[in-house]
């Protein structure tokens, strides 16, 4: 069993969970709250792929979490606009200008 931990102020649980889903083939993952605002991730690696060193496995996972954190942050920025695009695609409204006037770049 190898493990690593993330600062909960920087990384969201959503990013860690999504990265864990992508990592399904490489390891079984248990996520738990560690002390002092950290999220701990424990990896159980099947013997068949265990030639990957723990360090390389963890580095790969951290890269995945970082990308997922970007997705979460960027997604938060465009969430409302995305909902409006889909609504407008299927049920267009006339007063879109007024509705979106409060959203600033």
């Amino acid at each position: 069993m190898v493990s690593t931990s993330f600062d909960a102020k920087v990384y969201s649980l959503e990013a860690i969970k999504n990265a864990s889903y992508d990592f399904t083939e490489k390891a079984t993952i248990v996520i738990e709250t560690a002390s002092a605002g950290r999220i701990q991730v424990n990896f159980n690696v099947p013997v068949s792929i265990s030639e990957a060193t723990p360090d390389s496995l963890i580095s790969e996972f951290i890269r995945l979490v970082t990308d997922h954190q970007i997705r979460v942050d960027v997604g938060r920025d465009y969430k409302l606009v995305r909902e409006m695009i889909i609504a407008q695609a299927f049920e267009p409204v006339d007063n879109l200008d007024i509705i979106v006037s409060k959203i600033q770049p």
Partner: protein
Amino acid sequence: MSQSYRFLPFRFERVADRVLLVNDVGDFHFLPESSFDALIGRKISPESSEYLDLKSKNMIWDSHLSNVIDLLATKYRTKKQFLYDFTSLHMFVLTRRCNQRCAYCHASSVCVEDKDVLDMDVATARKCVELVFMSPAKSIKIEFQGGEPLLNFNVLKSVVEYSLELNEKYKKNLEFVVCTNLIALDEDKLEYIKSNKIYISTSLDGPEYIHDEFRKNRSGEGSYKNVTANLALAQSSLGHDNISALMTVTDLSIDHLDEVIDEYIARGLGSIFLRMLNPLGYASAEWNRLGYSVDDFVDAYAKALDKIIQINRSGVYFPEMFTTLLLSRILTPFSTGFVDLQSPAGVGIGGVIYDTNGDVYVSDEARMLAHSKGDKSFCVGNAHSHSWREIFGSERLREIISSSCIEALPGCAWCVFQSYCGADPVRNYAVYGDMVGKRPENDFCRKHKAIFRVIFEYLAKDDEDIEDIFWSWIIGKPLAENSANATQM
């Protein structure tokens, strides 16, 4: 310097040493890693060409939000136009009998003389045709399948004739396709096919030694000679454009796709569809002899695509049809409904299949599941006993469709290829026991993801010749004709 721009919905992944960005409507853009970091850190200068590229590709916005939303909404609606063409593909299983016994037969066909298995009868066929014309789709494609549909030619004729009769009233754009191994083709049938403009889709697995290994008649002889003789007959009568073929990649052909491609060109076939073998029907029992991994398939596909591109570079127009479908999604704003790969899935709402007894299944795989495992989970009714509304408005169909919106599925929700991809709830159910499935270990996903990567690696090269070839496939015209048209304009 921090800039005032905000993000529009996009997903990203590293492809060909760069970061590929794709938005919800399928616009894409490659960025070097450093520029991607600058984008995310909101440090891209508004004066830079990258800023303008990102803005014009709808990855960021800085003003006139309502115009941006309107534009993207129109593009989104256009991409999902197939939803308005509710159920346009209607497949008729005219018989489960077949004069071949292919080792990998997905349809689990039975022998010609098997009296226990009924062909579709005329009364059932007419009931199914009536359901077809209840569909609101403007364009209707009726596809005859089997077994071997030419073995029940009288019912094929009754479907064609009753459809033409009903279409006097409904005025749909009506098309017929027969998926046949060609063995039972004769002059009379050919004449009927010609006069009713029925398109032929056939199977040729490659040169004789490849084709005959797995496609044999019921007495165990390879069918190559018979198939190619009837192919030539059909081509001379119907014209080459009215017949296409697909090939199923097996463990034998996977390392010889170059010979398969040469065979197709020598036989005057204008395109090829490289189909991966699925572990369904007889193929599932023979998997050890016939099967291969997704990685092996994608390697072979990539090599074959390279050869096909070289052939096109030399002036011969010869597209690979699955690549062409994906390129249409990637490079054009248009909707390309393809029942096997769309979101929501095409099962039931894009295409439907009528079994010999009138049972209505949401896809061919759904019918296989019923025949091979006795599991009728994806049978949504019967043409004799259910109305169109009961079948197509059923809770069951809604449930199937709502579990196939990849925008909301784990793995797909953040996948960079989502705008071009789709789901297959029936296969997920067959393999994982639930309609959602698990993306990282799912062969369907792994195959598509790898094929998208191959295609985007070509697009990342910014090679104008390759892009011209890809466009010629999308438009369906040889390069020379495209440039001649451009010169005339």
